[in-house]
């Protein structure tokens, strides 16, 4: 496994613009074209990043891909698995039956119910295949950053 990086959330710089949400949706769409996704293609995919806001505090929260992830144990179908190469916790949507046990145990509440089609658990997948996750790449104020694991 290559030396892991980390995503850090810095709530002191989050402006609450939610552009991370927009790009997460685009990244998980068919066409990956922002105009097509929002004005054409039909139902938009769910964003996997949750922006929490209260007063002037805000931050974007996504799956922490925990070492000892409780969702891995709670999953009754084995759909939740840890990718051996990257260490990311991923959900195999083919296997998922939407029992929501993972939602029940995730202490960050970052797994969502996707009921747009087949009921599946939806969460951050670190934009597999991309070098930098879309939210990190597009945050205008450096509130979501990648950092070399020291």
């Amino acid at each position, binding site marked *: 496994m290559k030396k892991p990086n980390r995503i850090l959330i810095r709530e002191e710089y989050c402006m609450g613009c939610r552009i991370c949400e927009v790009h997460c949706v685009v990244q998980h769409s068919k066409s990956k074209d922002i105009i097509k996704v929002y004005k054409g293609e039909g139902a938009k995919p769910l964003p996997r990043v949750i922006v*929490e*806001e209260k007063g002037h505090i805000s931050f974007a929260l996504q799956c922490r891909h925990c070492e000892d992830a409780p969702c891995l144990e709670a999953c009754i179908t084995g759909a939740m698995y840890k990718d051996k190469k990257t260490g990311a916790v991923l959900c195999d949507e083919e296997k998922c039956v939407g029992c929501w046990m993972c939602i029940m145990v995730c202490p960050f509440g970052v797994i969502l119910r996707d009921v747009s089609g087949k009921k599946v658990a939806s969460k951050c997948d670190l934009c597999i295949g991309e070098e930098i996750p879309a939210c990190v790449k597009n945050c205008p104020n450096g509130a979501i950053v990648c950092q070399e694991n020291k």
Partner: protein
Amino acid sequence: MRYVIIGNSASGIAAIEAIRECDKQGRITVISDESYFNYSRPLISYLLGKKINREALPYRSKEFYKQNRIDLLLNKKATGLDLRNKDVLIGKERIKFDKLLIAVGGTPFIPKIKNSNINGVFTFTKLADAERIEKYVKANKAKQAVAIGGGLIGLKATEGLVELGIKVTIVELADRILSSTFDKKASGIIEHALEKIGCKLITSNTVEKFTNSQSHKVTAVILKDKKEIKCDLVIVAIGVRPNIELVRNMPIETNKGIIVDNSMQTNIKDIYAAGDCCELKDKNELIAIWPVAVRQGKIAGYNMAGIKKEYSGGLVMNSVELCGIPTISVGQTNPKGNGFKILEYFNKEKSIYKKIVLQNGRIVGVILVGDIERAGIYTGLIKDRVNAESFKECLLREDFGLISLPSDYRKHLVQEVSVII
């Protein structure tokens, strides 16, 4: 090192993965009395209701056993243990072990009902049950069924049968369905939904006897109050209890389940138990749910392989979607006595119910019906025994999230546990 695991479900597989993490060489033998590689037991109701097909059943792939070099013995039922020689007895066959894990799960509780030795009466805990029921329904063109027990298994079976076009009547002993985890309001929402899809619900009643046809097939159930309900099929789903059959009359300590300490070891050295069949010595904890079984299996596996790990206790919790309504319950949801504070949100029109139970400022239980977003945050607060006094007003608000929590606890959560790419 010879590891032997009796049982091929949640605990067994978790134990295998834990052992293989530390010990790539040791020999692992798995003894299963079923004929399938491995499957996710909760999925049998989805299979019955044709929401999934057989290909989707396996919990781990077929290659799992090859990859982890497991000797898998299917269709073999362990009949006894020779503690002195450290053997597992399968009839006359003997399997030697250095470390043994008993992960045989639970057995359905069979109530005393007169005339129950007839066709058409099934329990619903194994894949074989689902297959038999499906066959029976087809062969007998079953149109109506009775589900005895309004708990999780009974309701999931009911859903499956409804998908097959069968009219179901549910008979429940308590005054409401899901009585162990839900309160009146929560049960009410689901009861209403069940009635909408054509189910009948009879509460505060039990089945006393079955009636059968000439060909020994069930034709009706007779309730305690002598009422008769005609049916072609009965599912008995009153509950599950730990399967301690194997260790009966042995020096292995049992109570309701096989007694284990925090390292999942029984009172006999090198013999471990995990999952639905075991009972924690500490607090007599007996929580028969999937995530607990997996965690216990893992801990047992580590300890068997020589790595000391402790099981720190579990929470009663369940997530089940019934009639399209998602529900989650965690912890103490029906507290008795004083010293509890209840926070509630009930929107009848939208079928949304949220209840938080607090004790001395700490969240000890939560019920969510209809809206289960961010449910896990409550679970985390219950587990970490966080004092919620300072933010309890925010708990039921729509914008409740990590942001409602005190910032140092939140920072601890978010920055200690960081993402690895």
